[in-house]
C-alpha cells in the first residue's frame, strides 16, 4: 500500500502514534514520528507513491519531528529533528517542518549510510544508464535535475549518488527535488503542470519549494543503475548551452572531491572511484536555459 492511499487524517494519526509511519525510500526504510499540524498533507504530496512498510520489517532510520515542551511550544513555536534522540541540527519554526524533514533525512543519510560512497550529486537515468550531476550549491544542479525528470529522465536522487563499492551500481533514492529561490519560477515556467509543494520563505537557503518526484521513478526505486556520464553543471544567465568533454584524470579528482565520505572509505573508496572513472565519460556543462541543456543531454544519451 502507498502513502497516498491513506487519507490525510489517517496519515496524521499514524505519524503521531507511538510507532510512527514507516515507508520505503530507495534502499532505506524510514520510520517517522511527527506531531505537527499540516505536515501530513505535505508528506502525502511528496511521498504519495512511496510504499508503506508495516511494523516488523527492519527500519534503517528512526526519525522524529519533535516539538519542545517549554516556551517554544507556544511562543514562536519550533520543531526539532531527531534521530534516535537529539541531533546537532538546529530547530526550525514549526511551519517549516517539511524542509526540516527533508534536510534532516539528508543529514541522517550523510551520517549513517557509510556503507555507500556518498556522492554529492543529482542522479538521473535512462533505463539503467545513469547521468550524474555533481555540483556545488548554486551550480544549477537541482534546476537541471528537475528539468530532466520533467522531460522523461528517471529520477534517482536530487542530492545523493549512493554508490555501492562492492557492485559499482548506484542505488535510486527518488525523493522530492528542493528548488530554491529563482529556480522555482524557472521550473514553473519550464513545465506549468509540474507539481510543487508549498513555498517556504526565509529558510537558511532562501525560499524553498519541493518538486514531487515522478511516480514512475518512485515505482522503479529498487532498480539500480550504472554510472555512465558525469556532467558538472554551471548556470550562467543568458549563456548558450555548451558541453565540453573533460579528460578522465580530471574526472577522477572531481568524483573523489565530490564524495562526502571519500576519506572515510579509505582504500575501497579509491577503488570505487577508480572503477567509476573507467566506466564514465566526463563533461562540463554551461547553461542559461534548462530546455537547451536538456536537449544537449538527450543528444548525449542518444549518441
Amino acid at each position, binding site marked *: 500500500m502507498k502513502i497516498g492511499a491513506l487519507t490525510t487524517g489517517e496519515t496524521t494519526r499514524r505519524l503521531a502514534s507511538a510507532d510512527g509511519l514507516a515507508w520505503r525510500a530507495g534502499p532505506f526504510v524510514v520510520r517517522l514520528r511527527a506531531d505537527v499540524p499540516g505536515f501530513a498533507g505535505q508528506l502525502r504530496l511528496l511521498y504519495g507513491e512511496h510504499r508503506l512498510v508495516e511494523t516488523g520489517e527492519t*527500519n*534503517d532510520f*528512526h526519525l522524529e519531528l519533535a516539538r519542545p515542551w517549554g516556551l517554544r511550544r507556544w511562543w514562536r513555536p519550533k520543531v526539532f529533528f531527531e534521530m534516535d534522540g537529539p541531533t546537532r541540527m538546529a530547530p526550525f519554526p514549526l511551519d517549516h517542518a517539511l524542509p526540516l524533514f527533508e534536510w534532516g533525512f539528508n543529514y541522517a543519510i550523510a551520517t549513517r*549510510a557509510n556503507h555507500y560512497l556518498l556522492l554529492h550529486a543529482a542522479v538521473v537515468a535512462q533505463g539503467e544508464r545513469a547521468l550524474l550531476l555533481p555540483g556545488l550549491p548554486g551550480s544549477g544542479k537541482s534546476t537541471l535535475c528537475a528539468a530532466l525528470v520533467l522531460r522523461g529522465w528517471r529520477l534517482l536522487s536530487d542530492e545523493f549518488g549512493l554508490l555501492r563499492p562492492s557492485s559499482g551500481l548506484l542505488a535510486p533514492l527518488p525523493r522530492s527535488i528542493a528548488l530554491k529561490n529563482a529556480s522555482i519560477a524557472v521550473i514553473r515556467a519550464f513545465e506549468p503542470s509540474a507539481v510543487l509543494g508549498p513555498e517556504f520563505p526565509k*529558510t537558511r537557503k532562501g525560499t524553498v519549494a519541493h518538486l514531487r518526484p515522478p511516480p514512475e521513478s518512485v515505482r522503479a526505486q529498487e532498480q539500480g543503475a550504472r554510472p555512465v556520464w558525469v556532467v558538472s553543471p554551471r548556470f550562467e544567465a543568458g549563456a548558450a548551452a555548451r558541453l565540453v568533454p573533460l579528460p578522465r584524470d580530471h574526472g577522477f579528482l572531481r568524483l573523489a572531491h565530490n564524495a562526502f565520505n571519500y576519506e572515510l*572509505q579509505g582504500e575501497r573508496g579509491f577503488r570505487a572511484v577508480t572503477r567509476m572513472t573507467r566506466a564514465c565519460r566526463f563533461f562540463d556543462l554551461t547553461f542559461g536555459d534548462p530546455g537547451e541543456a536538456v536537449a544537449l543531454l538527450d543528444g548525449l544519451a542518444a549518441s
Partner: protein
Amino acid sequence: MTGAATLLVVLRQPERLAVLSAPEQEFTLRLARRAGLLGPLQHGLERSGLLETLPAPIRDGLEGGRVVADSRERAILWEVDRLERAFFGTGLPVILLKGAAYAALGLPLARGRLMADIDILLPRADLPQAERALQKHGWLTATSDPYDQHYYREWMHELPPMRHCHRPTELDIHHAILPRTGRLQPDSALLLQEVIPLPGRPGVWTLAPVDMVLHAMVQLFHDSDFGANALRDLLDLDGLLRHYGPTPGFGDRLLARGRELNLTAPLHAALYFLERFCQTPVPGHEPPGWLLRGLITLAMLPDHPDPRRDGTSVRLARWCLYVRSHWLRMPPGLLVTHLTRKGLRRWKQHVWHRRGV
C-alpha cells in the same frame, strides 16, 4: 532478556545475533550504535562467517559502523606516525595510552573499536618542550579561553587538548592518569619506569600491560560519569584481561601493582563488574559497597537507543555518578567554584545565543 543484556551476549558470541527475531536484531543494532560498538560487532560477525546470513539492512548498518571505525583507526595510527616525526631528534618519547596503544599493539580488542582522540603520556617536566615541538609541526591548542587554559594547566592531568591545523583528531597530552586535584594520585614516575617499546617502532612506547589495565580501570571506575562510552570502556577491560590474563602470574602482578599505585579501590570495583557483566576470568577481589554497586549496575548498560528514553532510575544513577566523578576530581571548595563558572558560562550561552532559522 533486556536489550543491553542481549547486546552483551551478542558481542561475546556474534553467532547469537543470527538467531534473534528481526525486531530484536534491529534493537540490538541500534543499541550497539548508541554505545559505539557497531565496529566490534561487525568484525566479530565477519570472523565467524555469519555476516552473509543476516538480513541486508542489518548487514548494511553494521558495515556503515565498521567503515567509520576503520577510518578512525587509520586516522589515529597516522597521528602516531606524525607524532614520531614531530618528536624526532628531541629525545621525547611517544608513549601511547588507551585506544592508540591498543591499535598500535594490534590487540584483538582494537578491531572495530571506535576511537575519538589520541592520548599520550610524558613526564611533567617535558611538557614545555613537547608543546614547542608540536607547535613547530603545526599543532595548535584547541581552546584559547583563559579559564580553560588555567583549568587544564593547574588542576588537570593533561594539557589543554591540541589539534593539528590540517587534521581533525584531538591530541591529549597527559602527565598523569588522574587530575592533580583528585583524591587518588598514582605516581606517574612508577608508570614511566615500566613502559615497553613498541616492536619495530623505536621511539614509540606503551604502558606495561598491568598498567594499561589499571589505567583503563581508573578511567572508568574512578574518573568517569558512566556516560556514552561506559560500555565500550568496560569491553576494553574485558578484552585486555582476556588477552593478557592468561600470562602466568598476571593476576597477582595486577593486584600488587594496584596496591603500589594506590589504586586498589577502582581495581576491585572493575574486577567485580567485569566478572558480573562480561564473565571475564579475573583474580580474587572484594566487591564494592552496596551503593556504588547499585548505581553502576543501573548506569552501565544502555536501556534504549534514544538516551532520553532510558528509565528514570537509570538517569538518576548516571547523575549521581556524574556528581561522584566530580567529587573525586577536586576538593569541595574548588569544585563549587568550578561548577559555578561552568554553569554560568552555559547559562550565558543559552540566553545570549540566538538560534537562526
